[in-house]
């Protein structure tokens, strides 16, 4: 799609030495069927798609493998360690994922609480250090705590992924200040992961200046995932462009837009 206006030129989106075209990353879980998933990925324009590592279903009661629905020549497969509650488990899953042979990137999750799925910060840092030493490019899912984000950067993570709100909650961006300060203080890319529920959430999140957003449930659980994916693509682009354009200052009183001169007597 071409536009008639020249918009501000963006810097490239580089994570772990790789340049990506889209600032929107999407998950592949919870879709009602693989055709809908493929359509949503297409409509989202995302290049990075996340996948999980699980046991093969030996009795073939259901086909859970997802690779033949994702074209590795067009999509960058980012394995996650979702479901891991200890650093050791996360490291184990990451190594299994790398063995599948796509890349050395991993979206690191170490979960500390079953109900909120909030991260176990200590386990996360331990696993991040181990995986970085092992040659991984680690994208670390974390909360919106600045100090943890700084520690993850110190540990050598390729990107830090603070949450907008809990995984699958769709509550949107709960702590814009926390996200903004993380972005301001870190040198590595900041990609908000989890909690975005609809397009306005994505737009507001990008307006904080973060480098990208990863979402899954907002698309998969929408009534029409393909249309929502399209909306999210536009929202991420709108929010990014608005951030680059620089918003007007907020004022507590009105300022007229029309001239005060030339009014009739």
């Amino acid at each position, binding site marked *: 799609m071409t536009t008639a206006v020249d918009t501000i030129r963006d810097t490239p989106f580089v994570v772990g030495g790789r340049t990506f075209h889209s600032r929107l990353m999407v*998950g*592949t*879980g*919870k*879709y009602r069927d693989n055709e809908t*998933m493929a359509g949503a990925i297409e409509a989202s324009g995302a290049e990075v798609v*996340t*996948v*999980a*590592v*699980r*046991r*093969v279903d*030996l009795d073939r009661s259901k086909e*859970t*493998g*997802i*690779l033949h629905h994702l074209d590795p020549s067009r999509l960058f*497969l980012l*394995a*996650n360690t*979702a479901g891991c509650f200890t650093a050791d488990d996360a490291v*184990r899953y990451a*190594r*299994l*994922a790398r*063995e*599948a042979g796509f890349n050395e990137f991993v979206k690191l999750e170490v979960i500390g609480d079953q109900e909120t799925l909030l991260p176990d910060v200590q386990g996360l840092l331990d696993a991040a250090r181990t995986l970085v030493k092992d040659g991984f490019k680690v994208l670390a899912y974390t909360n919106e705590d600045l100090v943890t984000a700084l520690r993850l950067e110190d540990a050598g993570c390729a990107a830090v992924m603070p949450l907008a709100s809990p*995984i*699958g909650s769709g509550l949107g961006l709960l702590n814009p200040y926390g996200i903004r300060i993380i972005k301001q203080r870190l040198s590595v890319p900041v990609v908000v992961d*989890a909690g975005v529920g609809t397009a306005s959430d994505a737009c507001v999140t990008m307006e904080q200046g973060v480098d990208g957003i*990863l*979402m*899954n*449930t907002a698309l998969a659980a929408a009534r029409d995932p393909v249309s929502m994916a399209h909306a999210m693509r536009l929202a991420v682009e709108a929010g990014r462009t608005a951030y680059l354009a620089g918003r007007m200052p907020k004022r507590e009183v009105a300022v007229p837009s029309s001239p005060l001169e030339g009014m009739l007597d």
Partner: protein
Amino acid sequence: MTDSIDVVVNGEQRRVARGATLLELLRSLELDPRAVVVEHNRAIVRRPRLGDVTVAPGDAIELVHFVGGG
């Protein structure tokens, strides 16, 4: 001495031929070696070595692949 042994594959007990390799185990399960990653007693076994590693009674084998996730 029987001609089959018990191993644990993905948490389930399974009988396999004595002396079977991991590659033969995958074949018996009709799994494409290119589509799964194999962990044998907690150690990853790379694809080219699957035919070299023989399973022993009680071995724990995990066969994993990518599924949908966020």
